[in-house]
């Protein structure tokens, strides 16, 4: 709990040290927003100029996989939020189970994504030789699809690494001293979720009234 906080260099005040990690992560989230902003600009351009052909390509996206994955990732956001609160409140057992749950949900997201990729590959949805639609805006949609989802999956993997580290700290027995790390990890995980919430309609709901 907060009173157990151990001051470490370079901090002189507990209050400052406690907000340091969330502060740093928030700054980094600003970076992430601009990072994804770049590829969303590409999407906006391609959809604006691609018109109906772009929509035709988008209709091939596997909406069921996407929807299930959205539900999985949203649930993981809930478990992560509970884990963070439990850490702050000193409920070790709850924190451990919720972190474990987030890890499992995150992993299942990646597994489901893998199945979706397999389906996409079978249906020749990779732009290039043998691509279902040939050159054109549909290829641009799928270029966005692969770049954005792979980038997002890398973020999920990094997030899982952070959660695994929190679980390891918990195993060591001093998670409660690292409440700010849990807070920072949770912030990052929520960013990963929010990015997906933005990607989901852009990828799966285009041309589906």
């Amino acid at each position, binding site marked *: 709990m907060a009173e157990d906080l151990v001051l470490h260099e*370079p901090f002189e005040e507990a209050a400052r040290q406690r907000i340091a990690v969330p502060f740093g992560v928030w*700054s*980094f989230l600003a970076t992430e927003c601009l990072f994804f902003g770049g590829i969303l600009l590409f999407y906006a351009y391609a959809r604006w*100029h*691609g018109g109906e052909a772009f929509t035709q390509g988008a209709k091939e996206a596997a909406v069921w996989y996407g929807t299930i994955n959205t539900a999985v990732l949203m649930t993981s956001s809930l478990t992560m939020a509970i884990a963070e609160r439990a850490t702050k409140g000193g409920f070790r057992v709850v924190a451990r189970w919720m972190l474990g749950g987030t890890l499992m949900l995150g992993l299942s997201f990646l597994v489901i994504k893998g199945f979706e990729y397999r389906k996409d590959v079978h249906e020749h949805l990779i732009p*290039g030789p043998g691509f279902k639609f040939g050159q054109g805006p549909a290829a*641009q949609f799928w270029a966005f699809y692969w*770049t954005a989802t792979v980038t997002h999956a890398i973020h999920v993997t990094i997030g899982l690494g952070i959660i695994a580290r929190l679980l390891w700290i918990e195993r060591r027995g001093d998670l409660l001293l690292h409440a700010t790390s849990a807070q920072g990890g949770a912030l990052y995980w929520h960013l990963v979720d929010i990015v997906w919430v933005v990607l989901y309609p852009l990828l799966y709901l285009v041309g589906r009234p």
Partner: protein
Amino acid sequence: MNSDPTRGGIPERGAEPPSYLREGTTVRSWLTTTDHKRIGILYALAITFFFALGAVAAALIRAELVTPSGDFLTNDEYNQAFTLHGIVMVWFFLVPSIPATLGNFLLPMMIGAKDVAFPRLNLMSWYVFMAGGLLALFAILAGGVDTGWTFYTPFSTLYSNSHVLLAALGVFVVGFSSIATGVNFIATVHLLRARGMTWMRLPLFVWAMYTTSLVMVLATPVLAMSLLLVVAERAFGLPIFDPRSGGDPLLFQHLFWFYSHPAVYIMVLPAFGVVSEIITCEARRRIFGYQFMVYAMVVIAVIGFMVWGHHMFVSGQSAFASMVFSFLSFVIAVPSAIKVFNWTGTLYRGQIRFSAPMLYALGFIGLFTIGGLTGLFLASVPLDVHLTDTYFVVAHFHYIMVGGSVSAFFGGLHFWWPKITGRLYSERLAQFAAISMFFGFNFTFFPQFIMGTMGMPRRYHDYPPEFQPWHVMSSVGALVLGFGYLWPIFYLGWSLFRGERAPANPHGATGLEWQTRSPPPKDNFDRLLVVDQEPYLYHPKESTPDEVEQAHAKQKP
């Protein structure tokens, strides 16, 4: 600031702790350090290497250009030489130069902190920098890159036969070290200021680091994404900018310059900070218009994000867009001019010492002014149409980046050398270096303005013979400039071993970093600091006549 060493804290009992340089002397102790001062030195060693690498490429270019025909470089090799020069100098030298070395060393000390907010992240940023540097180095050794530092599509993604992927990955990776440094500095300034160090008491160098960090954190990710898209198109054949699928190569230019124009401010804002510190100290004057200096930097950082389109006047973007970008580019000249006027105002009635750092700083003001004013030429659409892709542009941005930032970097290096190393260098030899750098720089780049207006295009090594006199002048100037860069290695190196021991505050400066020993102990200060004054109190208020006292001058009828 708190200049009385007996006040404001309890002195350490017993022997004082050793300096940061003696706190472990093994290679391992350096490579695993989390001390911001040591990390600053690690960065300094790394960027010195990259500076040398970029300088070799520049030397090749200037040697090749002495005669109008191609001499010893083929067209491809010439392309690789200027690409190498650009990539290495921008991302592996200029962007990290002042923030990662002087900034790392000084920022915590100037605000009275023991270290940056995230010391381990700080060390990690150096390793990330080295990893990116190795990738870029590998790209060079594997055969080079020929796209120019701008990686313009579709050449970079579809046609170039050089090692674009490796170089782009290197730049991508090195961006994360910028971001880490930026996040660290922002958190440090917000969270670790000493008691009494309010925002309006921060030295201008700290404000410069803070605004630079904001730009780093918000601009670098856009570069990362644009390079990622280049990699996706080049390596995996995904049609992103490919016109055959309806893509637009100009989209890349927009993304690239959305980073790369703010990057100019990443390179020059730190220089503003350094110059403000040197000029106040060496003129023994309070800074003229402190608040305006602060707001000018903040405004530059913000508007810097809105002017990228002036790199694309001839790209076919809409006339309306060009007009807006042109207007905003003129607007950003205002805060820059405020800074130049305020530095000049600071000199008025000062007791100026023409020491080596001051010579560098004064040189900075002149060169930055020329660079800034020629920037206005380029911000004007009709003139830019004539000058785009000529040596005028080359000269303009070298005046800002080399004349401005590198001069300031050398000035800062000299100014804080006694604090960093604990040794004094030879003032005479250093003054000689500063002057040769100033003249060498002007000999190299002023002729380029002239041949640029006459129509000499950039990026060609085969040129019409009427330009030869200007190219010869420029190449001879580069020799002098090269001497100006090499000469400090000798006397600074000599001072490391034989130099006189530096006192705590050899310049009689007011900053907190001078209130501790030279070189400082690992924790920077032997006592807790309390700040009760504004910065740059080189002369007490009311001690000077009204016309000199700027802050509270009475209105004259």
